[in-house]
């Protein structure tokens, strides 16, 4: 196997399009940090002020070189798109939470480093991923159990606490579990695809045909896991992502919309029942429907978030001139509103556009993937980003209940950043057809 890996190791290929497109994040990062220095400190930007921008550009160029060396046929747009989002996220972190910015910068370096190492170390084909799907499933479940236990036992942890502390770092395993879930589901669905598409197991003397019990069990287990996560962690967002990714992959793999619709119905019904039963969920929904009457109380964050959007208007207040810090937890939960306040509706649309581009290119990777496993993997990874973005921004815009989901590459948060780069590395590793 080692010799085969060596034999198929790609040669370094010059990728001019990707390199040139990196000029966009480079200009965005350098320009924004320079502007921020002028606005906030009223001085000409020096090398120290631009250090994060230079660090990001250097990291992106190294990442580009790693892609050129190991995944020369990978999509050339994904890295520059991520670069732009990252530049925006980094400058907003320096703007909104300067005390945490250095830490976020270190996480960024760590994330890009992990990306480069993944590209260099991992073999070119993905057989190692698909061979032992249950290993990834069990790893994911263990991580979740650790989160439930350690996260809830942690001192001062809120009801949504899902981070696990290791030394000075804290890590949020649910972020990583999303990737593990996709890795597992791609293999699982590839294995059971035909069975799910043409159910062969008869029930009620042939009147009802369902897939084999193993497949049904696997699907029900995922539904149960999502609901458990919802109930125990009191957070709809991650559960919605797990289950949404599952439904999307199930639909694409089988082509049977009725599975997806049935699954959606099951989830909606159970979420409704849980919501009716658990008072905190109901309260949260009431606040979502009418935050105005409790605008100084439980509705404070939502209302402040909306005022922040309004304050941005069409063109925004300008970088450094907004007051998004009135929103509690703005750097993690409401970074999008802060961007809209300072960059306006135009800036917000640009961020949405970047995500649409990312998702479009991600689905293109899926359609071009050589094997079915690669297709499902790319599909799942892209869908994780898509759902995550929809859920958090939907929450920011009062279209959905707000959940503890981060905006990939933009929000403050180390584990989100790290897993997002792992996701990107995997996505770029999926080889297109020749």
């Amino acid at each position, binding site marked *: 196997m080692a010799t085969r890996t060596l034999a198929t190791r790609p040669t370094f290929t010059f990728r001019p399009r990707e390199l040139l497109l990196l000029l966009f994040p480079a200009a965005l990062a350098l320009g924004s940090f320079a502007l921020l220095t002028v606005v906030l400190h009223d001085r000409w930007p020096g090398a120290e002020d631009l250090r994060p921008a230079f660090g990001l550009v250097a990291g992106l160029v190294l990442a580009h070189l790693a892609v050129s060396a190991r995944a020369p046929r990978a999509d050339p747009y994904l890295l520059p798109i991520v670069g732009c989002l990252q530049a925006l996220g980094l400058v907003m972190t320096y703007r909104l939470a300067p005390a945490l910015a250095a830490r976020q910068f270190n996480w960024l370096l760590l994330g890009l480093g992990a990306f480069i190492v993944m590209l260099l170390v991992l073999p070119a084909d993905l057989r190692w991923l698909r061979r032992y799907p249950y290993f990834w499933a069990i790893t994911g479940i263990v991580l979740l159990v650790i989160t439930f236990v350690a996260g809830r036992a942690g001192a001062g942890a809120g009801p949504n606490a899902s981070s696990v502390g290791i030394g000075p770092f804290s890590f949020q395993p649910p972020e990583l579990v999303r990737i593990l879930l996709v890795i597992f589901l791609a293999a699982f669905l590839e294995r059971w695809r035909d069975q799910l598409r043409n159910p062969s197991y008869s029930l009620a003397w042939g009147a009802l045909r369902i897939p084999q019990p193993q497949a049904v069990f696997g699907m029900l287990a995922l539904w149960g896991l999502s609901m458990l996560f919802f109930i125990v962690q009191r957070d709809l967002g991650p559960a919605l992502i797990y289950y949404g990714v599952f439904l999307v992959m199930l639909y694409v793999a089988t082509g049977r919309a009725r599975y997806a619709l049935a699954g959606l119905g099951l989830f909606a019904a159970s979420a409704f029942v849980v919501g009716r039963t658990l008072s905190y969920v109901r309260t949260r929904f009431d606040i979502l429907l009418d935050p105005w009457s409790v605008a100084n109380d439980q509705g404070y964050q939502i209302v402040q978030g909306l005022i922040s959007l309004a304050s941005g208007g069409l063109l925004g*207040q300008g970088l450094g001139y907004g*007051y998004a810090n009135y929103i509690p937890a703005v750097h993690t939960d409401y970074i999008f509103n802060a961007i*809209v306040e300072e960059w306006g509706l135009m800036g917000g649309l640009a961020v*949405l556009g970047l995500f649409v581009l990312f998702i479009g290119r991600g689905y293109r990777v*899926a359609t071009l993937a050589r094997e079915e496993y690669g297709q499902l993997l790319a599909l799942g990874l892209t869908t994780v980003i898509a759902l995550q973005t929809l859920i958090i921004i939907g929450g920011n815009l009062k279209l959905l209940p707000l959940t503890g989901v981060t905006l990939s590459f933009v929000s403050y948060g180390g584990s989100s950043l790290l897993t997002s780069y792992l996701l990107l590395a995997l996505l770029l590793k999926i080889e297109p057809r020749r």
Partner: protein
Amino acid sequence: MTGNISRIAAIMLMAFGLLSLGMTYWTVVRGPALLDLPNNARSVEFERQIQRGRILDRNGQVLADTQMTDQGPRRVYSYPQLAPVLGYFSLRYGVGGIEAAFNDALRAYATSDSLAAMRYRLLHERPVGYDVVLTLDLRLQQEADRQLGNRRGSIILMDTEGAILAMASHPGYDPSRLDETFPQLSADPAAPLVNRATQGIYPPGSTWKTETLAAALDAGVTRPDHVYNDGAETLVVNGFPIRCNNNPPGVNQFDLAHAFGYSCNLTFARLALELGEPRYTEYAKRFRTDDTLPLEIPVARSQIANQDLTNQVLLASTGFGQGELQVTPLAMVMIGATVARDGTLPRPHLLQEVRTPNGQRVQGPQTGSLATVVQPETARQVRQIMEVAVNDGYASGAKIPGVRVGGKTGTAETGRGTPPHAWFLGVAPIDQPRYIVVVMIENGGEGSQVAAPLAGRLLAAALK
């Protein structure tokens, strides 16, 4: 499978389209309404960015200025006794007085002027407010405050154009400490937040006889040399006896000027009755003493009666300044200003000009006359009679050496066992009128003893 992926991509794209619509809704469609919410702290933040304009007296003396500190703007009032007029500026309690009247100008029209707003939005230039120059003269204001001292009341000094040179109202407050003291101030029974000169309403007492005099002369009901035999008389109106009350013992026969100087109630009840209700009311309307006078800062409505003057007893007692009269000191100074001029009522004003930080005038004073009240000859006659009151009557406390001063005292019954309000209305010089003064001291006692000397000293300072 590729087709399925495209379908998923299309669904995702639609979802992102929904997000764009949602975002457009909040930023553009609902934006302005959201920004007006009381929960929006940004309006306060924006206010903190504004270098609020200065308030100056007519000679350029700074009365209010803004220092920009790290904690935000700090309004500095170099002469806090003017608080009832200048008002206050507080990010918590808003604005009052002149600060409220010219708030937009002082804020450089930062939100109403789209150009300034645009400059702020795009260039982030700190908006620097316009300067408001008042007609007040700090020197005379200080003199008025000194004269009033610890007494509760008010003083207005006006020129014949209607420009207010001094406006004192005591007790006052420290406007720079308003954020801490506002709750106590607004609950204080002494009402320090009220500008007594424009918002206090009181019975005017005998100073009111000036209006009755002007109306009666103008309507031809009497002449300055008409002799009255009222000193020992009693006029019974519908069973209500009216006597002269105030004439010196033994002086029972006097002309109109001395009836005014001795403040004979009977003569003025007679004049009101002779004028009759319609004409009396008509003159009161022309003097705007049954109305709210226009001024840059809030003014209370004055009234001659709760309903009307058809009741003869009410008309008679209104003639000498009691009845149901409730007037502001500003309304009284306007009576004086009308007779000091050619019988026209000047527009009272505190604003001299609004100018940009580099001195360009953007708004001038509102001047001119509001109405023609009496004929010029009438005004001249009233002035001469007012001079007699100072020289021979009870208004002698207002005498100034070398200056012809006219005036009228007032001692208004408050009717609740409390001391009467002391009033004085004065004009100087009589031959070429320049200044009109009103002194009003709540429960001060005799107008001739308490109010007249204050008015004389202030007029002397103004004429110096």
